[in-house]
């Protein structure tokens, strides 16, 4: 019995159906962590990308190193680092927020690359034409650069969103009660891991396939006429 739901281990199917509501509670946590983490990743990644376009090497070089470091080290250790080290500096966050922050920081390294590639794909000629037409920098970004960058950026961001979704189970290690955590708890109680773990796998599969399909739809409806994407 968990969250008021009892399980029925008489047959695998009955077992699966009976624990589905419990896993549903974990699914919500999983989705919340993904959404929060991705919002952080999109924001911090943008800051990194813009800093890496700065003129001074005193800025671009350290930022490049930080991005590289975030990208090349395991999420798990970054998560432990934040979880155990932040409180030593007086920053005590709920486990969920620590988890979302770790996800966000790791993925900000990826999103910053996505932004950078998207911006760099816009040739110098476009900037020069905008200057020659006397558009302001803000107008150039809004009307010329960003509309051309978005169709390149969005699909790549979408792929990282799916990827982050699949990384959220790691948060269970810092006591975030996500789907995988619940499946393990159920397994510990019933001594039957196959069904809960398989069910979690299946739910992830449905989620990621659904997300991928959604990304394809978004890709198709994005206004990108005239833009050569390759």
């Amino acid at each position: 019995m968990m969250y008021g739901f009892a399980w029925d281990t008489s047959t695998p199917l009955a077992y699966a159906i009976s624990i589905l509501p419990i896993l549903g509670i974990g699914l919500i946590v999983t989705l919340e962590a993904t959404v929060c983490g991705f919002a952080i990743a999109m924001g911090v990644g943008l800051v990194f990308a813009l800093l890496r376009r700065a003129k001074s090497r005193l800025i671009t070089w350290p930022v490049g190193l930080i991005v590289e470091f975030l990208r090349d080290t395991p999420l798990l250790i970054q998560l432990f680092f934040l979880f155990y080290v932040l409180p030593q500096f007086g920053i005590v966050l709920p486990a969920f927020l620590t988890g979302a922050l770790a996800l966000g920081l790791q993925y900000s390294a990826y999103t910053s690359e996505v932004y950078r590639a998207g911006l760099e794909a816009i040739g110098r000629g476009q900037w020069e034409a905008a200057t020659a037409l006397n558009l302001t920098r803000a107008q150039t970004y809004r009307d010329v650069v960003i509309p051309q960058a978005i169709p390149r950026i969005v699909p790549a961001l979408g792929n990282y969103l799916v990827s982050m979704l699949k990384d959220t189970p790691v948060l269970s290690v810092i006591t975030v009660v996500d789907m995988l955590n619940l499946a393990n708890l159920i397994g510990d109680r019933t001594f039957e891991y196959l069904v809960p773990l398989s069910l979690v796998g299946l739910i992830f599969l449905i989620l990621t396939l659904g997300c991928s399909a959604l990304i394809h739809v978004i890709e198709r409806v994005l206004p990108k006429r005239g833009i050569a994407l390759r």
Partner: protein
Amino acid sequence: MNPIIRFSNVTKRFGALTVLRDFDFEVKQGEKVTLIGPSGSGKSTVLRILMTLEPFQEGTLTLAGMPYHEPDGHGPFKAREKHLRQIRSHVGMVFQSFNLFPHMTVLRNVIEAPVRVLGLSRNEAECRAVDLLNMVGLADKKDHYPSQLSGGQQQRVAIARALAMRPRVLLFDEPTSALDPQLVGEVLGVIRSLAHEHDLTMLLVTHEMRFAREVSDRVCFFDKGQIVEQGEPERIFSSPEQPRTREFLASVLG
């Protein structure tokens, strides 16, 4: 009458490379001037400096009496953005590679800056745009995207786009160099018709010698960052005085 463009003692460097040294050059309002010369001689740089795409380090440059450098200006351009924008409002440019905005229709390419920068209403801007597209013979393509047009058509749209800002000075940076030979004619035709505009000052960098001879009031032969020889096209093409001009013309005219 004061010249509309005046370079005096302008020096332009790219790192260690000096592209223009103590450059003096004047253009009168309404004058059509062609810059010819071997590639890398600094012709395009002159246009790019005028368009504020490149800064220069020394000397003074004025456009309609307005100096490019501000007395208290900072940064590579030694001027505030506001000041540069004021200068740019008098200048338009047509690029070698067209540089149309690929995500906008032909019409939107032409009205974008008049609406955003000049603050015209959309209707007014569209009326003007259609007139200009008519002039370049492409009004029927106004809802197409640049990628659906040939290079020659794209360049004609780019000319309409530059004209929509009503510049006093229009710069052409090798406008036909990126085109297939059979498409060069239609673009030159449009530029030729502009050459009849009395008030429009035109600076043209081109390798089309016959065309230069036909439309220019003055031809300047550039070499190594300096004007080696300049004068009326007839004289430059038929009896160049400088050996380097003769050499160059012999090599390009064959």
